[in-house]
Structure formats: structure tokens, C-alpha cells
């Protein structure tokens, strides 16, 4: 058995952040007092990852995939061939949607890095927090962010359980550490997060065991599970294993009823960690979910009801609770719940590209919104009411925030959000899955109210005695750049949603 070859370009979106994390820690060990080198290293690594992911997406365009880590003729990878499907010999297979997920994770990580590298962080919600504490360990934070990104990047292209488990945990645990470091002094919400994560990992391992029992191999793919799906006794085991794997990823998408950590952790951990959770963590979650759903093609009708219930309930309940949120981070948390449902919905119909397209639009919008929140939170945590009349005081921030909120709601001029919702609903309607499509429509209506509430506050005139709030320049720059990306996506939605319309 010869050693497998790795095409560095194909593995770059995974390798660059990982090596960057190590390099950041090394730099931090060499020069502990200096603030600047570690974020620079991190930024370089993430930029490299973004560029390589975009190149991969262009290469894999049109339904093909780019692969590496191929072990031809390896008996360990031999599985019973399913009719019409050919097992691939490669372990790292990047499709267009997978490359998009990698690019999203790296870009979001870059935005978070800029926010984290500020001298003062944004103060989290807490009765006795001081206004922004100086950052203590820039190198450690950079390493944590890069580790998260590399975990998300590897889950997006994982085709076997080992990579899947490692990547998922790599995407989860550093965020917990960051929440503790950056969160509110009294209670950072990290305890909720870690207990849920540990439980989910445990369930995932049990699910992995059941999968291996049923299929006899570690490979996550439709080919691998086909034989087990035909055998009646093994089908039950396989289905239970898949259900457990789905449940373990569901908490990262903050689907109901695995959502309880989200409304606690988002406000208490601060805007930067919330951005990481909402973007990179969600990308990892979708990557994991896609890998599992793709592998369960043979028993898809059996797990469809479970997925439908998760999606439908999350969409509606998330929107209803977002309607009553009083501060921006909690609203974004509940918004994340409902958007998690939206992201899962096309997977019920088996359409992966629609889910990835929707997630792409969501991630761009949420990063824009959270960077505006971070920019405005220099003087302390904000409530929604503080944004009244923001258009007059801070027009740039209000414009970016407004566009992001309209994209969430799916209203013009947030055309990208509208098209994303259409892209999600189309496979559901095509396959007649009305019990998911109708709650989706209800969720759209309720979501309109929830997001337009905030948009209305931006536009309504405020009492005149408010001075414009102090804004953080770095966060403003990040907000403007992401806002421009969102604007270009709005004008040319094909950039992100193109894969979903083929």
C-alpha cells in the first residue's frame, strides 16, 4: 500500500488554517508581548484559504469534484458496489458546494479575526461588565479561530466518519474556549455550550458505532450504506445510527429542541463570539449534516419525517421568539434558530446545493449585521431600542444593518434573501413536501414582522437629545466590506446561489 498523495491546492483550505494556528501559537511563544504578529499570521493563513477555496469552486463547477488523498486499490476502501453508483477511492473530495462552504468559513473567520484583534473587545451582556477589557492573549485567540475554521473546512469535504468526528469537534471546542475568554465575567454561557457539546459528541460516537456496525466501514457515502439499506435488520440499525448522527449535529445548527444554549450564549459571549457561532459553526454544522444526509440516501424515506419535524418546528418557533427579543444578540440567536430550520429544509428533499446556497446568503448577512452591532457597542451592550433613528445618526451603519436585516427577511432590496428562500422552497414544492413548505411560509410571515421591527426602529425618528454613538473604526471597516459583499450578492445573486439554480 503506497502512501497517498496530497494535492496541496485541494487540501489548502484545510491545511492553511491548521498550519496558521500552529504558527500563531509559535509566534505567540516567541514574542509574547507583541500584539500584532499573531493576527497577521492568522490573516494571511485565512486569506490563502479563501483564495484556494474559490479556485477549487471554479474548478469543481458544473457538478464535478476535485479530489485528493486517493488510495487506489486499498482493500480498506473496498465496499460492495451499489448499482449505478461507483465508489471513489479518494478521501478528500471537494464539490462546488463543499468549496463554497470552505470559502465561507474562511471568510467569516477572517472577519471575526479582525474584530477579535481590536484592542478592546465589545462588552458582553452582563449587569456588571466593564466597558471593554483589553485583550490578554491575542495569539491564543487567533489560534482558536483558525482551528475552528480548519475544522469547519474539513467537515465540509469529509467522506468518512473519522474526519467527520474530528472536524466537528475541532469546529466546536475552540469556540467554547473563546466564549469563556471573551464572555461576561459572571456567566459567559460557556457552561451551557460545553454541556451540550459534550453530550452531542457522545451521541455522535454512539451513532458512528451503529453506522460501522451496519455498513461495516467508516465511509460516509451513499455507496457505503447501500448494502445495509437493503437488508431489513441492518436497515433499522443504520437508521438509528443516522438519527443519532443527525441529532448530534443538530445542536450546532441550533435546531429545536437542541437550541437551548443559543439564546443564552449569544448575548453573554459578546458580538465576536456570536459571529463565530453564527457563521463558522453553522457552516461546520451544515457540512456535517450534508455528509450524513448524502450518506443516507438508501434510507432517506425513513429519516425524512424526523428531518421535517426538526426543520418545520425550528423555522416557526425561532421566528416567533425572535419577535419578542429585546436586544440584538438575542434576536440574532433566535434568528439563527429559524435560519437553521431553513437550511435543513432542502435537505429533507435531498437538495444539497439549495441548502448551501441559502447558508451562504445567511452567513454573509449575519456577519454584516454582527459587525455593525460590534461597531456600535463600544460603550456597552445595546438594546434594540437604542437603534431608534440610527439612520440619521450613523447612516452607513444603519444602511449595512438594514440591508442585512432585509436579506434575512427576504424582502427587496434584500433580493438575495428572497431568492434564497425561493431556492429552498422550490425542491420542497417539486417533491410535494407540503408539511415542510407550509410552516416555511408561516415562518416567512412571522420572520418579516421580527426583522422589520428592527428595520423600523432604524428608520423611525428618535428623540432629538441623542448624540451619535461612538463607533469602533475596525469594526466599521469590516462592516463596510461585508456590506459591499452583501450588496454585490444582492445585485448578482448567482455568485452564491448559482449552484442552486442548475
Amino acid at each position, binding site marked *: 500500500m503506497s502512501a497517498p498523495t496530497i494535492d496541496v491546492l485541494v487540501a489548502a483550505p484545510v491545511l492553511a488554517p491548521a498550519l496558521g494556528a500552529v504558527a500563531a501559537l509559535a509566534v505567540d511563544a516567541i514574542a509574547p508581548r507583541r500584539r500584532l504578529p499573531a493576527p497577521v499570521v492568522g490573516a494571511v493563513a485565512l486569506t490563502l484559504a479563501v483564495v484556494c477555496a474559490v479556485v477549487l469552486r471554479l474548478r469543481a463547477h458544473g457538478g464535478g469534484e476535485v479530489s485528493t488523498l486517493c488510495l487506489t486499490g486499498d482493500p480498506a476502501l473496498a465496499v460492495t458496489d451499489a448499482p449505478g453508483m461507483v465508489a471513489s477511492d479518494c478521501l478528500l473530495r471537494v464539490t462546488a458546494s463543499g468549496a463554497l462552504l470552505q470559502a465561507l468559513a474562511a471568510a467569516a473567520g477572517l472577519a471575526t479575526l479582525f474584530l477579535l484583534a481590536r484592542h478592546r473587545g465589545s462588552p458582553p451582556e452582563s449587569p456588571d461588565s466593564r466597558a471593554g477589557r483589553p485583550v490578554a492573549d491575542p495569539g491564543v485567540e487567533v489560534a482558536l479561530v483558525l482551528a475552528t475554521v480548519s475544522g469547519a473546512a474539513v467537515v465540509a469535504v469529509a467522506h468518512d466518519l473519522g474526519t467527520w468526528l474530528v472536524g466537528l469537534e475541532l469546529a466546536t471546542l475552540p469556540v467554547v474556549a473563546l466564549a469563556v475568554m471573551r464572555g461576561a465575567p459572571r456567566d459567559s454561557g460557556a457552561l451551557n455550550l460545553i454541556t451540550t457539546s459534550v453530550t452531542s459528541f457522545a451521541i455522535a460516537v454512539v451513532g458512528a458505532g451503529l453506522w460501522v456496525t451496519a455498513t461495516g466501514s467508516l465511509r460516509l457515502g451513499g455507496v457505503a450504506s447501500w448494502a445495509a439499506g437493503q437488508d431489513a435488520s441492518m436497515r433499522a440499525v443504520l437508521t438509528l445510527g443516522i438519527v443519532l448522527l*443527525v441529532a448530534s449535529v443538530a445542536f450546532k445548527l441550533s435546531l429545536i429542541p437542541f437550541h437551548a444554549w443559543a439564546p443564552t450564549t449569544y448575548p453573554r459571549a459578546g458580538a465576536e463570539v456570536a459571529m463565530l457561532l453564527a457563521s463558522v459553526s453553522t457552516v461546520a454544522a451544515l457540512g456535517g449534516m450534508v455528509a450524513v444526509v448524502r450518506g443516507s440516501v438508501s434510507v432517506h424515506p425513513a429519516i425524512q419525517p424526523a428531518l421535517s419535524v426538526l426543520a418545520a418546528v425550528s423555522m416557526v418557533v425561532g421566528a416567533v421568539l425572535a419577535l419578542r427579543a429585546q436586544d440584538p444578540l438575542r434576536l440574532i440567536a433566535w434568528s439563527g434558530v429559524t435560519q437553521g430550520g431553513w437550511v435543513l429544509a432542502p435537505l429533507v428533499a435531498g437538495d444539497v446545493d439549495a441548502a448551501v446556497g441559502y447558508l451562504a446568503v445567511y452567513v454573509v448577512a449575519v456577519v454584516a449585521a454582527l459587525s455593525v452591532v460590534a461597531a456600535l457597542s463600544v460603550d456597552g451592550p445595546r438594546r434594540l431600542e437604542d437603534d431608534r433613528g440610527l439612520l440619521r445618526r450613523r447612516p452607513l451603519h444603519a444602511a449595512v444593518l438594514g440591508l442585512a436585516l432585509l436579506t434575512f427577511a427576504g424582502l427587496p432590496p434584500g433580493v438575495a434573501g428572497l431568492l434564497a428562500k425561493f431556492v429552498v422552497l422550490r425542491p420542497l414544492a417539486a417533491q410535494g413536501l407540503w408539511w415542510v413548505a407550509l410552516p416555511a411560509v408561516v415562518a416567512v410571515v412571522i420572520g418579516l414582522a421580527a426583522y422589520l421591527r428592527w428595520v423600523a426602529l432604524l428608520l423611525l425618528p428618535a428623540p432629538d437629545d441623542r448624540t451619535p454613538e461612538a463607533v469602533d473604526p475596525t469594526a466599521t471597516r469590516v462592516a463596510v466590506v461585508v456590506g459591499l459583499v452583501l450588496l454585490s450578492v444582492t445585485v448578482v445573486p448567482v455568485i452564491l446561489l448559482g449552484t442552486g439554480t442548475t
Partner: protein
Amino acid sequence: MAWMLLALPCLTAALAFGLARRGSLAALVAVLGSATTLVLSVVALAGAPTGARGAPFAEGQGSGPGSTLGGIDLTLQLSLSTTSAFLVLVVVLVTLLVQTYSAWYLADDDRRGVFHASIALFAAAMLMVVLSADLVLTVVGWEVMGWCSYLLIGHWSRREAPRRAGHTAFIVTRIADIGLLLGVSVLIAGAGTSGRAEVIEHWTSAAADPGTRSVALVLVVIGVLGKSAQLPFHDWLLDAMEGPTPASALIHAATMVAAGTVVLAQLLPLLLRAEPARALLGLSVAATMVLAAICALVEPDLKRLLAWSTISQVGVMLAPLAAAGTGPTAGAALGHLYGHAIFKALLFLTIGWLAVTRGSTAAGALVGSGRSHPVALLAWAAGLVSLAGIPLVLGGLTKEHVIAAVGEDVGARGLVAHLVLGSLLVTVVLTAAYATRALIVVVLGGEQRVRARAVMPAAVSGILVVLAVASIVGGLALGGRLPDAGHVPLGLFVLVLALVLLGVAVGYALSHLGVQQRLVDGRAGRAVGAGLGVGTLQHLVVVRPVTALARLVAFLDREVIDTYVRAAAWGVLGAGDAGTTAHRRSRPASGLALLGGGLLAIAVITAIVLVGAS
């Protein structure tokens, strides 16, 4: 050429509106625009093709863009013939005189620019009605006229009375316009095209259903009755006296009230084949003529007297269309339209000046006012002579043609024609009577000497002189231009002369014997002054049911339908509050419990599905 004639007033209106802030500049623009249009219409008249017999408006030779909409061919054409060019000339002449007069009359008004623009737009709309060879364009012009009349009547909008009068005019004519729109729609739908020539051709052919044709024409006649202020739609014209006098001179002399005549003349081949429509028209016209003339005799306000007179004379104008034979119908009606336009405009403009000198239009205030300026005296007398129908003057000439057209071979045409003829003859008497009354009041009445001569601007004098001359000798302009109005037999001529002299005698006797004053001050005068209570009737029959229905609909929307919407919102918000309360305590243990429960739930769901599938 026709399109240029139409475009010029539109352009004038737009320019005047743009310059509305600079009142005098707007007035200048308006006057110049009207003068240019007048020159252009003279040129057009010189070069216009003569319409064929039976199609005096030459709709077959129209020009314009065509388009197709929903299976209907919209030709959208205008056509020019000597008849339409002549009418255009009349309208544009009166418009020019009115614009010039308004420059003096409204010199102190801060909204005069808008007024001039509205007058120009009004003229454009009337030209569209006259020139159109397409039913859609006719309706467009008709409706724009209705809107302009609302603007002009309610011009002094800071006061309550003109606003109400404008609303009344608009709503009453609108309600009547329902008939016009429905009738025109039936005609267009049946013919599949909106060009008038094709519509007439279709509906006069054997393929057309006579019943539908009659219904359509009845509806059109209803619309015409509304715009022409015949019974039962007559009260808007009385209220319209709240508008400035130049507006009344234009609307109630030359244009809007005459538009119905033009439309019916254009649709004459169809009208002649629709007996029920003619009968309806005849009944209304006969009653209106006589009633309005009686009311004019006892009306206390002189401007409203002129309004009653207009109502009556428009009835005379419409009489040939209702009752005459096929030959001289259009000619007689359009002839009297021309005559009435000239002398009624003259009378309105004169009373405008008189009212300015005396401060009011009530008969009591205007006693002897004509003697304060010779031009005013001359103008008033000339107009009334024409109105009364003294033979050989313009008004007399056209009225005789009307009576001749209706009376010719009347025996062959049924009861309604006889009724109309009888009403015409009675109206001749009454018209002469109230014309005498008006002359006596303004020129001769009162014992006190008029102390000083009032000032009349040169422009106004010029206008009044021109109109006075026209209303005496304007009959010369008739000739080949309008369709043949038939021949007046000598016997009829003598009869009409006798009736006019009788009427003059009655009028003189009434006022000399003091009966006139008693009538005016008594109950009859008061009832007539209040519009004969028709306004109250309309309020009861139309306004109250419609507003009650509107309140019902609003109630249903607010209390019935909105309740569901509010309940949905309340439900969702309540659920949101409940959820928020549930999540306020952020215990990790409850999160884990939720997780376990969820895991159990989806495992159970999947198990059920598996068991069910096997």
C-alpha cells in the same frame, strides 16, 4: 392638422400651469395660446374637407395612431371636416374671449394662473370631443371636461359654497356618465373596434341587434342628459354659478353643456334607429324646456336666471335630435349650438361686468345697472334680442330652424314629437317673456337716475362689442359649413314671430303690473331660488344610501375581518412571550433535558416510520 389643433391648447395649458405662480405671465401665455389656436382653426376651416351627407364629421377620413387591446381595435383617430372645423372655430373664439376677459376679471386673484391653465385644458378637452373619430377619445375628452368643470366651478376653493358646488357638479355628471360609459362600451364591444365610422357601420347594418342598440343609445342619452343639465340632472348647473363668471361663460355657453349635442350628432345614424332613446330624450327635453323657462321668469338672481335659460336652451338644442326627421336634424341642432354659444357667452360676460359694478348678481341689486355704460347696455340688449328669438338675428334664425326641423312632417313621427313641438312653441313665448323681464330690470327699471358712468376696460368693451355684433348678424356665417338645416316655411316664420311678440307683451305686462315682483318675492320665487328641492331629493335617493353602504363596508372590514388578523397577531405575540419567559432561566440542566427529550422524540418518530414501512 386635427392633432395640431388639439396639441396647441394642451401645450398652452401645460405652459400656463407651469407658470401658474406668475399670474400675469400665465394669463399672457394663455391669451397668446388661444389666439394662435384661433388663427390655426381659421386655417383649418379654410382647408377642411366637406363631410358627406349623413356623415358631417367625416369620421371615415380620420388620422391617428392605432392599437389593439384585448381583441378590440383602438383606432384613436381625429378627423376634420367643415362642420367640426366650424365648431372648433366657435369654441376657440369663445375661449379666446373668455381668456382675455379673465385676465381682467381675475386680476386680483392669486390663483389666476391655475384658472387660465384650466380654461385652456377645458378647451382642449372640448376640441377632442368635437374632433374625435373614435369613441374612446370622445369619452376621454368628456371625462376631462367633467374634471375641468370641477376645477373651474370650485376655483374660489377657500369658501365652502364653491367647493360644494364643484363637488355637486362633478358627482351628478359622473353618475350620469355611468350611462355614457356603459353605452359606449356596448357599442364598442359589439363592433369590435372603437372607430366611430366602423361602429356606426356595424350597428346600422342588419347584423346588429336592435334591442341592444336601443339599450346602448338609451344609456348614452342618460349620459348626455347629465352633462347637458336636463331633468333630472339639472341642479348642478344652478349651483355652478358659484364659479367665476368667465368660467360660466365658457362652460355653460359654448362647451360643456353643448358637448352632449355634439356627441349625439356624431352618433346620429344610430340615434335615428333607436326609438326608445329618442323618446327618453324627447320627454326629458320637453319637460325641461318649459319648466326651466317658467323658473327663469321667477328667479330672483339674474345669474341664475341665465342658468335656467341655459338649461332651457340646451333643451331646445337637443329637440331636433329627439324629434326631427332624418334630414335637417344635425344641422338644426348644431346651428342652435352655435347661436346659443355666442349670445349666452355675451350675456354671461356682460353680467360679470355688471355684477362687478354693483357687487351682486341679485335682480334687486342690478336694477338699472345697464345704463351706467353704453357698451353694457348694447351688449345686454343684443344678447337678449338673440335669446328671445327675434327673427333674422342669430338666435332667432337658429331657433326657427329648430322649430322647422321638428315641425316638418311631424304627424308621421308619433306622440313624443308632437309633445316636443308643443313644448318648443310654449318655450318661445316664455323665453321672450323672461328676456323682456331681464331687459326691463337691467336697462329700464328703477326711478333713480344713475349717477356716474362706470369704468369698463377697453379689452372688455371690445369683447362685448364683438359678441354683440356676432349675436345679431352671426347668421351670415352659417351656410355651407354646417349641415343643411332645412328650410323654414313662411307660415312657420309668421307663427314664430307672433309667438315672440306675444311673449314680449306678456313679459312687459307682468313687470308693469307688478305681478312680476310679487312672484319673485313670493313663495314661487323662493322655491325656484332654492332649486326646486331637487338637491334634497338627490341627497335622499343617492347620497344617503351610498354613504350608508360605505359605512357598512368599513364596519365589516374593521370589525369582522380585522378581528382575525388581530387575533393572529395576538396569538403569535402571546406565544413569543411565553417562549421568552420559558427561556429566561438559562439553566444548563433544562437545556440538556430538552436535548434528551428531543432525541427521544425523533427516535420515536423514526421508529414509527420504520415499523410502518416494514
